[in-house]
């Protein structure tokens, strides 16, 4: 009796194992399969199409796995890094500091040798600024061996766009948007009088405030002084920084900022602008695709943020929009690199640009982009990005600075108060680091 029960149990277990092993995917001998994780919902169909084409060409299967939204994706990548089970190809959506941690932990393959082989053929295809975001230069403060650690898929710039029709409606030349900060403030007064909404942006997600503030910091103080502040050599109470903070107060007072901007998420800002309810938007070049989807007839153009000083040029954030990294522990890393070389080749990049209305990272593929997108591409020369500075500000300081700007906009604190508060946090963080 007991024996027969054991036999039954063994038979059931055997059946279960058989069923489960039958469910496992079959692997074709000799043909590796590459897994790539990404977060780009809008690019998923294009990626799937490219994966099909690549398999047809080479026999290598590419499994693009989408994990959205980007917050959830970031958590997944971190968790996979902790469990050392990252896929063959993945992207990192964090600051350079986190990027360096992934490299130090041995998760990312250095690509310099691949970029430089055959007289730097692969490297030469990219915009230098796109590659720079994934590069660690000599003497970087993260203690990473200099080199390239990621492959840019597309490029982006974050700047302003304006509604031509609304500008015309207010009596301005629609082909000449405000060029200086004084002109911008003047338009703001007209916007207030006309009862329209001025500048919309995702300032509820504070990094976009940081972006504009940094643009003006570069414009007023120049790159060296901004970086000196990050290094702790110049305090945030410096008149240059107080001036940057004051610009936000002036924008608020003039009426150029839309109501409720401080808690506005970018999706809402995009809806307001696309529906012709706001005159200006501060957004990335990805907005072209978004606006096209929301309102194909929107009459708008891109512009640099109006300069507040003539001393230094206006710099905007830009460079690589999204990048892929290769898992250094993957047994298919060579195949993964080969696939990324193919993905960033002229034809594939042109297809991606056309299908997703993003700026390609490959210089040779720019010819096929729409006119509005080329306006963003034209300003590529004015770009900078925290990821290419070689040094990062403390997150607590960035948070205090950005939230401080929100406080200025809602009239709760003065620029001087915020500058003093930020400097206090900076000193605390510096002391902790020491």
């Amino acid at each position, binding site marked *: 009796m007991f024996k027969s029960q054991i036999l039954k149990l063994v038979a059931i277990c055997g059946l279960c194992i058989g069923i489960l092993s039958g469910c496992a995917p079959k692997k074709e001998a000799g043909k590796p399969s590459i897994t790539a994780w990404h977060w780009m919902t809008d690019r998923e169909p294009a990626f799937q199409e490219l994966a099909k084409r690549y398999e047809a060409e080479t026999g290598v299967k590419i499994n693009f796995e989408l994990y959205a939204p980007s917050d959830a994706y970031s958590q997944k990548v971190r968790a996979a890094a902790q469990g050392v089970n990252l896929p063959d190809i993945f992207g990192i959506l964090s600051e350079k500091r*986190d990027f360096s941690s992934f490299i130090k932990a041995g998760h990312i393959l250095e690509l310099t040798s691949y970029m430089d082989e055959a007289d730097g053929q692969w490297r030469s295809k990219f915009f230098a600024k796109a590659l720079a975001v994934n590069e660690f230069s000599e003497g970087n403060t993260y203690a990473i061996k200099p080199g390239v650690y990621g492959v840019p898929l597309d490029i982006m710039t974050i700047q302003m766009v304006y509604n031509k029709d609304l500008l015309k409606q207010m009596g301005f030349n629609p082909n000449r948007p405000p060029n200086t900060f004084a002109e911008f403030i003047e338009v703001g007064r007209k916007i207030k009088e006309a009862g329209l909404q001025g500048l919309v942006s995702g300032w509820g997600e504070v990094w976009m405030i940081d972006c504009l503030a940094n643009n003006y910091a570069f414009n007023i103080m120049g790159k060296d002084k901004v970086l000196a502040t990050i290094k702790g050599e110049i305090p945030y109470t410096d008149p240059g920084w107080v001036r940057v903070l004051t610009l936000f107060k002036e924008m608020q007072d003039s009426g150029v900022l839309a109501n*409720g901007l401080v808690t506005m998420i970018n999706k809402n800002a995009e809806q307001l602008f696309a529906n012709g309810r706001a005159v200006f938007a501060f957004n990335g070049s990805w907005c072209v695709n978004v606006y096209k989807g929301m309102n194909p007839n929107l009459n708008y153009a891109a512009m640099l943020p109006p300069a507040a000083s003539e001393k230094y040029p206006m710099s905007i954030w830009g460079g690589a929009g999204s990048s892929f990294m290769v898992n250094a522990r993957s047994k298919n890393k060579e195949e993964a690199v080969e696939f990324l070389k193919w993905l960033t080749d002229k034809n594939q990049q042109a297809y991606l640009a056309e299908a997703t209305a993003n700026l390609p990272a490959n210089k040779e593929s720019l010819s096929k982009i729409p006119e509005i997108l080329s306006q963003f591409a034209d300003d590529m020369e004015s770009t900078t990005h925290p990821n290419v500075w070689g040094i990062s500000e403390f997150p607590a300081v960035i948070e205090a600075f950005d939230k401080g700007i929100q406080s200025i906009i809602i009239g709760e604190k003065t620029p001087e108060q915020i500058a003093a508060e930020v400097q206090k946090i900076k000193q*605390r963080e510096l002391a902790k680091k020491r």
Partner: protein
Amino acid sequence: MKIKSTLENYLFVLPAVVIFVIFYVIPFIWVFQLGLYEWDGILPTKTFVGLSNFKEILFEDKIWWQSMWQAGYITLIALTLQNMLAFLLAWACDREIRMKNFYRVIFFIPPVLSEVVVGLVWQWILDGNYGLLNNWLAHFGLQNMARNWLSDPKTALTTVAVVHCWKGFGWGFLIFLAGLQTIPRELYEAARMDGANAWHSFRKVTIPLMVPVTVMVSILTVLGTMQAFVLIIAMTGGGPAYHTQVPVLRILGSMRGSSRFGYACAQGITFGLILIIISFIQYRFSHKARQA
């Protein structure tokens, strides 16, 4: 025989104990242990910092305490407004009124809706420029009251609290209703025969018998509201400035924004302990009240 029976009893509770230890006790110890380190969540190495993360939370992190007070404010509104509303509606539905089953369903709709959806819908209603609420106010000649409900620091927190109450009162309603239905009808009959009117019955029969249920609802409200964050992220993202920040948002910010996993774990432990203390105090008070 007695030993065998005792062992059998232990055997029966063993699965529950094992699950509790694996999913609650071990993670708690692990999180506490991580709270003693400075770690970015990526590097395999962690730097031991002792209790300095806890020290920073307790004595230096003003925003953390601001977020605690703000969560406390939302909880206070939930304890009073939300639970009072839930109790009154449950009491009304417990009586012989028409369409009471319909009301029961209606009142339980908000809690089953996704918090993100509720947050976005309310954000749209409360929008300062094109929101429905401001439109209605203008329609009724109250345009002076129209404002940016979620961007104005004077109204943002209270607005979030009210929406939270709207979203959450259905749970309290359901538990109160279940509690009211357990009160024997004979007690009301007896009270009526003794000359008690509706108010007396409510005060002398309903309220005393509902004390245990009220205690449970209060504890659940405190725990649920103090940990609220999805609705807040969807409505304000914790802004303007720090005006709608709550502890869970701060913990999330430490993990995702600052990559300070160790500090986030220390915040989580501190927050958990505060909630345990609050619940314990609440329980002791209600226990005394019941005895009195």
